[in-house]
């Protein structure tokens, strides 16, 4: 299918400008030019080690190993050197732990219920944050959560923990009654409400958790890769008149890098806060 835009303008200069614009567009999308737009294929790199076995290692898995190692090193160092009066490094780590405990767990779950879930939420937050931040580390350049496997596993963790928390608190029957038949609704509405609630509790919640995290990281990676590859193209391959655009795209890349730090933190925060909300919804007895 093709859409054709027609114009009646014949002025020379505008035609030139338009044809050069068309060239940029065709360069950006075609194969002939030197510019290669990033594709979704970046997220699925070829195998590096143990090709063909179940232990196949590709670039993304190495990024995950690096992230996990970095996470362990940070916390081991912080725990080893823990002092009563925290230094700068310990202060940052304590701030993160305190943030999850106070601003997520205690605010959503309440002080007395929170203590059971603080460990879960803290582990999740730190892990997701570290995995997400790999997207802006030079040389790694892709978030470890950009492939669905890891977000899916984290979502499954949330899924199991809110289901088991609900069952432990209210029993199987009580939990199902609590979450599938919300009180204060006229009985005939349950025909509509219960299937929707069932979908919500058992399918949509974990699926959206995983999708949200992955899609954010994929889009962040594509944006950064687009900016960097456009910079490379404009500076080294494009016509001299277009080199100026390179400055624009490199500034864009730097801004988007900062934006990615924000998105990485925000996604980790949203993931744990939704986990806390789901746990709270399943252990809370509605009156």
């Amino acid at each position, binding site marked *: 299918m093709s859409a054709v835009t027609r114009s009646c303008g014949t002025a020379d200069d505008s035609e030139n400008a338009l044809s050069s614009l*068309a060239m940029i567009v065709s360069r950006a999308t075609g194969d002939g030019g030197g510019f290669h737009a990033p594709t979704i294929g970046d997220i699925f790199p070829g195998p590096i080690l143990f090709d063909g076995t179940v232990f196949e290692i590709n670039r993304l898995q190495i990024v995950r190993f690096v992230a996990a190692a970095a996470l362990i090193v940070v916390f081991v160092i912080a725990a080893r050197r823990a002092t009563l009066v925290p230094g700068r490094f310990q202060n940052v780590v304590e701030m993160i732990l305190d943030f999850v405990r106070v601003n997520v767990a205690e605010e959503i779950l309440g002080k007395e219920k929170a203590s059971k879930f603080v460990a879960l939420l803290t582990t999740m937050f730190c892990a997701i944050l570290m995995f997400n931040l790999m997207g802006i580390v030079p040389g790694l350049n892709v978030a470890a959560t950009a492939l669905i496997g890891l977000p899916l596993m984290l979502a499954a963790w949330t899924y199991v923990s809110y289901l088991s928390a609900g069952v432990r608190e209210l029993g199987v029957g009580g939990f199902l009654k609590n979450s599938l038949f919300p009180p204060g609704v006229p009985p005939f509405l349950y025909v509509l409400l219960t299937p929707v609630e069932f979908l919500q509790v058992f399918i949509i919640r974990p699926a959206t958790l995983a*999708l949200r995290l992955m899609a954010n990281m994929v889009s962040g990676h594509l944006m950064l890769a687009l900016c960097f590859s456009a910079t490379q193209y404009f500076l080294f391959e494009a016509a001299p008149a277009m080199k100026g655009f390179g400055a624009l795209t490199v500034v864009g890349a730097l801004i988007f890098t900062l934006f990615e730090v924000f998105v990485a933190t925000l996604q980790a925060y949203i993931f744990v806060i939704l986990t806390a909300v789901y746990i709270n919804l399943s252990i809370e007895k509605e009156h």
Partner: protein
Amino acid sequence: MALAETTTVLAEVSGNIATIGYGLAVLGPGIGLGILIGKTVEGIARQPEVAGQLRTTMFIGIGFVEVLGLLGLITGFLFK
């Protein structure tokens, strides 16, 4: 006829036109986020003492709204 001679092709779209739809899918969540965040700011301005609670609720809401826009991104890659 004179008109036909002067027409020029400005841009040709190749590939699936449905990709435009995935772009359009971002509009709704965009409006939603605007309303959501704007109303939160309004609430905080009226009652600064509940700012923390409002912010938390806002982020939960953002999580739900944002996933709709991201579905547009995902479908763009799934159904080329």
